[in-house]
């Protein structure tokens, strides 16, 4: 019986999601300038839904103080209050409003994850492209360094570095970005390897173009598709990394709300059948799925496969 109810819920949720995606696409097609509207029309349902969700996350993150009923750190009730009229999603282990914390966490988590991923990509792809285009000992040195860094398990490496440099937001951003950038480097280099052999890169070299221009104008634009796809996944892995670090006692500085730590702080509740910790975990999952739906669509477009 529970299974059937679950199935019905599943179908209902999927249907609502699809409807929302369709409606969003329709609206975007109406609102947007012609060029974008044309692209929007090609978006499959999943991608429309993903874009809608990302938009909602951005709005929530930007306008968090306006949307949240309480402040991020204010203690408004007793700990672990059930869902009620005042605290719609109950309170957390210190009696702070769960809904407000979730909303503020959107800002912190998405913001920091974005900065980390962006930094990792900046570092990783620039160096990866550099290695591919210059080749020779530069490539060897960079590649071997990355091999070495990748041979150290990332979580343990992160723990080591964070313990050395402290767990401030800045050092967390730098450490995770650094570790992530090795993965980006590998991808960027292998993608760029296929591009540097193209005639237009040769032409640019023969023209006497500098390295910076070769990287930014000739190679990077053509390596964007796989990098963007990787960005989608990496972006989400950052949440998990923060969450795992938080599990090991090295996460975000309190009382800052972030989803990873919120999952960790409330996780034990799940063993008593309380679904509260599902909320931050679900928030991460929904964003992951949404981002990757959009990325998949973009990849599909870039791949040139025409079938639908």
């Amino acid at each position, binding site marked *: 019986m529970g299974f059937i109810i679950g199935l019905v819920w599943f179908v209902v949720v999927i249907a609502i999601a699809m409807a929302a995606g369709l409606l969003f696409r329709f609206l975007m097609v109406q609102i947007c300038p012609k060029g974008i509207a044309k692209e929007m029309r*090609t978006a499959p349902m999943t991608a429309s839904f993903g874009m809608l969700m990302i938009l909602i996350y951005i709005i929530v993150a930007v306008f968090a103080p306006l949307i949240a009923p309480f402040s991020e750190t204010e203690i408004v009730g007793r700990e672990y209050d059930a869902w009620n009229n005042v605290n719609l999603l109950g309170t957390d282990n210190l009696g702070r409003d769960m809904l407000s914390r979730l909303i503020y966490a959107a800002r912190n988590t998405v913001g920091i994850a974005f900065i980390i991923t962006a930094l990792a990509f900046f570092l990783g792809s620039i160096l990866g492209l550099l290695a591919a285009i210059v080749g020779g000992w530069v490539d060897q040195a960079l590649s071997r360094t990355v091999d070495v860094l990748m041979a150290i398990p990332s979580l343990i490496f992160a723990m080591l570095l964070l313990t050395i440099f402290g767990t401030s937001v800045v050092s967390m951003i730098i450490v995770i970005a650094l570790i992530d950038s090795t993965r980006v480097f590998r991808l960027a280099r292998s993608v760029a390897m296929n591009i540097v052999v193209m005639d237009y890169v040769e032409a640019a070299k023969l023209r006497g173009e500098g390295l910076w221009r070769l990287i930014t*104008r000739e190679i990077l634009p053509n390596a964007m598709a796989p990098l963007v796809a990787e960005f989608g996944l990496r972006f989400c892995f950052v949440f998990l990394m923060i969450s795992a670090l938080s599990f090991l006692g090295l996460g975000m500085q309190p009382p800052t709300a972030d989803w990873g730590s919120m999952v960790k702080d409330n996780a034990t509740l799940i063993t008593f059948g309380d679904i509260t910790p599902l909320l931050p975990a679900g928030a991460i999952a929904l964003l992951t799925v949404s981002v990757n739906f959009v990325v998949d669509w973009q990849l599909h477009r870039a791949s040139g496969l025409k079938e639908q």
Partner: protein
Amino acid sequence: MSDQEILLTIKGLRIEGRADEEWLEIVKGVDLTLHKGEVLGLIGESGAGKSTIGLAAMGFARDGCRISGGEILFDGINLRTSSEAERRALRGKRIAYVAQSAAASFNPAHKLIDQYCEGPVEHGVMGRSEAERDATELYAKMQLPEPETIGFRYPHQVSGGQLQRAMTAMAMACRPDLIIFDEPTTALDVTTQIEVLSAIRDIVEQFNTAAIYITHDLAVVAQMADKIKVLLRGEEVEEADTRTMLANPSKDYTKSLWAVRSYARAEQPPVDSDVTPVVSVRGVTAGYGTVDVLKNINFDIHAKRTVAVVGESGSGKSTAARVITGLLPPHTGEILFNGTALPPDYRKRSREQLRQAQMIYQSADTALNPKLRLRELIGRPAQMYLGLNGKALETRTKDLLSLIELEPDDYIDRLPSELSGGQKQRIGIARALAAEPQFIICDEVTSALDQLVAEGILKLLDKLQSEFNLAYMFITHDLATVKAIADEVVVMKEGIVVEQGPKAQMFQPPHDPYTELLLSSVAEMDPDWLTNLLEERAGLTAS
């Protein structure tokens, strides 16, 4: 032939292709009838829809295409209404396909024999061991070397011409009633092309297989087809039997196709021996690692002159270009530019030296950065070398677009993907011109283009040469192109110059034997040319 039984009937065939979100008609009501054992040549330029029609004859539409109207009857079976499973049962068994590039169409992961046997075994025509025996037989018929063992090689271990023949053998595996040949020899060197053509012709005749032979090369289709259908933008222009068509084309478009090969630029007066050549290649030996790909090459290129470097793949002609541009520093020898030696490595060359020598590539698809707009593609060299900016740069960019006969305001903000093949190649030319060089290397610039388009490019290059006093080095494997544009010819084989001199002298006997082979292998618009040539060569070897 028409007294024979009808094998394939296509009526009012319409096929649509998706571009962005719209469906555009790419085949607009084509009719076609093919009898058993008959060979139909489908001819047209790119975009004519010939491959699409060929595939539709198998009831197949590529991803992003759909058959939207008309009727396809194969031996009484309606391929439009039959199920996918029924069509699948026909493919490979009764209708086979030979693709343009055998190198790409053979699965690199499996041995030839495995790919050969797959069809007969999966279709239940014969068992594996029987199929293997059969393969050996067909390989022998296709004049493949070592027919017993060649099947146990992987595709990359076999040369292009051999692969194309193995693919034809594979198509024959189930003894189909119909084979679609989709430009089977386009990717091959001229000398190889002859072997493949003759093998295909023999086997089709032997098994009395009907065939649709798709090509853009008139001379080739003339050798193979019983009748020819000319297509233009998805519509039929005319159809007639081969001899009639060659002798008496009725439509203007067909005539214009026939006329392409007539272009030849005016004879240039010989250069005075005391004039310093723009580029001078002196005793260059070069290669990768310890292997020499070029061996002691010498030639000069003068202003307002075109030197054509001719050879088949692997002859070293592209390597020569890489040496001149400085991408591949030579082991020995040097490159003189207006009498002074250039640094062997391009990274050591000054910006001025780089500016003076420009290059146009064979494939505009890979030579133009697909993410940059024409404004930047063409404008960048002008900005870099001549320091133009802002308004001046825009004016110059537009001038260049006008020079290559593209409407500046319409095109300046386009991406390469928004251009046709010929237009892309023109952008390549404009980019070279933007640097205001003295010397341009043209690497197979017309080989990927349709003949009419190619002619346009050649004419444009010719015009620009006289306008800007350019020296051209023209790398090509196509002797027709040589005839059209060269002043001097350098014939290369395996890294050695076998013959060089003024064009007139090159096309007059006596030739070097290799030059002779090259020249004689160029297909002619005579239906009997292949037969005669083969007989002639057979006679030569016999005597």
